[in-house]
């Protein structure tokens, strides 16, 4: 087991998969010579050449559209969208094309494409370098959406995504890139898409999260423990298809659930988790399921006061968890 940051795990996964399968290639803005603005592909241009690591023109719809065509013609493209905030010009290609290719052809076509993109805030990225997009794309049938929280999951899920026959949106929390370190198996292991993981066992209440918020929840669980409250922490890992069984299991176990995410609240992932619980574990609830999310303002402002006001943080999660525990 080697210790890696999240960004190193991502780079390693791409490198290993590109070495293993010549049909795997990377395309995106600045991914070549520069190695990506976060250096996710640092060194790969040199190693694999300009037609395996392609510096695209500045056009996201094109990038995804080209990946679709290449996938149809036998390749396995990895797309890097420089920031999740700039995926919007590709919305039509992702939602109306990629996500519907298999369905509209009744299974004749399938698209083994991974779309990697840094999302989330806490880095003074302001309105357009901080957004979360998981609810928007999670709502779209035909896409798979994953959001690993640590290096091992990052590597294993990226490998799974690259080998998956369907389009996978792979969300990388940019604040976690260098902040979160952890052990990464050296072997060829994949982490299956569609499977959540209990990252900490507990009995009194459940915290459900993913990405950066997962770490805050673990921190909160630690604090709660010192106060005699035993919190279970479930890492969704895959947003869509959601591991409903895991959500239901933790609800049945603790009877109290708090869902945490940065993304806007209205019709967000927390709402879906609450709906799943409502439908499947209503009778197990000892309290209403609660959510702590980014507010319904357009995005996270630049100024640090506003940024902090936007982002859920351990203090606020703790307060909400205590409210839940006391219900």
């Amino acid at each position, binding site marked *: 087991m080697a210790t890696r940051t999240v960004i190193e795990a991502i780079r390693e996964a791409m490198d290993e998969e590109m070495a293993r399968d010549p049909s795997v*290639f990377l395309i995106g803005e600045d991914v070549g010579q520069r190695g990506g603005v976060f250096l996710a592909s640092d060194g790969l241009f040199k190693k694999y050449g300009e*037609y*395996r690591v392609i510096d*695209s*023109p500045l*056009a996201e*719809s*094109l990038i*995804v*559209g*080209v*990946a*679709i*065509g*290449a*996938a*149809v*013609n*036998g*390749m396995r*493209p990895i797309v890097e969208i420089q920031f999740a905030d700039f995926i919007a*010009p590709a919305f*039509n*290609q992702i939602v*109306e*094309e990629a996500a*519907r*290719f*298999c*369905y*509209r*052809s*009744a*299974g*004749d*076509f*399938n698209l083994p494409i991974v779309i990697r993109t840094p999302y989330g805030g806490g880095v003074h990225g302001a309105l357009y370098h901080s957004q979360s997009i998981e609810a928007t794309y999670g709502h779209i*049938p*035909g896409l*798979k959406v994953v959001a690993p929280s640590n290096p091992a999951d990052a590597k294993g899920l990226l490998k799974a995504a690259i080998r*998956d*026959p*369907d389009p996978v949106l792979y969300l990388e929390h940019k604040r976690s890139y260098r902040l979160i370190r952890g052990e990464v198996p050296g072997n060829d292991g994949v982490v*299956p*898409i*569609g*499977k959540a993981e209990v990252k900490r066992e507990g009995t009194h209440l459940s915290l459900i999260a993913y990405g950066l918020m997962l770490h805050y929840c673990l921190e909160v669980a630690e604090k709660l423990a010192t106060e005699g409250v035993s919190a279970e922490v479930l890492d969704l890992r*895959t947003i869509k*298809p959601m*591991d409903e*069984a895991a959500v239901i299991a933790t609800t049945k176990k603790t009877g109290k659930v708090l869902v945490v995410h940065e993304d806007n609240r209205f019709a967000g992932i927390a709402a879906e988790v609450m709906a799943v619980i409502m439908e499947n574990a209503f009778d197990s609830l000892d309290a209403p399921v609660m959510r702590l999310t980014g507010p319904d303002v357009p995005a996270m402002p630049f100024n640090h006061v506003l940024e902090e006001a936007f982002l859920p943080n351990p203090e606020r999660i703790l307060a909400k968890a205590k409210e839940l525990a006391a219900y």
Partner: protein
Amino acid sequence: MATKTQEVEQKGGQSRHRSLGLSDEQALRIYEVMRLARAIDERMWLINRQGRAPFVISCQGQEGAQVGVAAALKPGYDWVAPYYRDAGVVLWFGMTARDQMLSFFARREDPNSGGRQMPGHFGSRRLHIITTGSPVGAQLPHAAGIALAFKQRKEDGVAAVFFGEGSSSQGDAHEAMNFAGIHKLGVIFVCENNGYAISVPQSQQVAVQNLADRAAGYGFPGMVVDGNDVLACYEVAKQAVERARRGDGPMLIEAKTYRLTAHSSDDDDRRYRQAEEVALWRQKDPIQRYAKYLRESGSLTDAAEQEITERISQQVDEATEYAEEAPDPTPDDLARFVYKQEPRF
């Protein structure tokens, strides 16, 4: 690069097809596919007007551009990215009358979409026809991606993509041409300019006379061709394909043509087109025109014409009958193929 109008009629005279390297058989095959496309389309309107099927969208008038270009490609090796009018393209690439009728009636067996999409939304992995959705323009980047994959594998395959002049206004058209130009990809961009996007005339769609002029801004040649002259379309496409196979990059072909029907069975084109204009273009019908040429060049005898007519009507009859009887999908089919591989839990 200069844009030049093809005037192949003047070249070659009575044996234009032979001077283009087409045997009589090949020339007749082109004719037959054009006629088959038209015949299927006409049958669909008939059935639609009888209330037996809800929707038609037509190739009528554009068969020359479609079959002329497709005939310059290698079916099963090259790829095509057609749009909803391109019955002529997909028939050349191996689709059958039965396939079309199965789509038209939205049957379970429909090879394009299993009855999920409207007719005209073609697709077949086996035949190298990329699946078509409705949002126009999206197929241009796909074609660039197909050509990129050929280049990555050092193969000389070509991707031909078809679109209306209205669709050229979409950002995707620009983005795809730009990318294909940069990497000298083997893409043939074929604009079937029929003068209207539903009701919107060319003058409200673009500020130029010739869409082909745009190619210069992407670093490759653009050619205007008479889209109702199937051999002219074949000639220019052949040049484009040779160029592309050599690795010299894309070409934009603008085929000037006209749609002889309303936009679709839901449209009433009298709201925006003069009857005289339509009548004028009926006289330029690419099938009539090609038939005349073939007859004059001695390649099409009355007997051959009759054989073709019979073969086609038999195919269309059989296809219609088969498809109309074929079973619908079942409600269980609704949830299939959301993914190729359902995630394991």
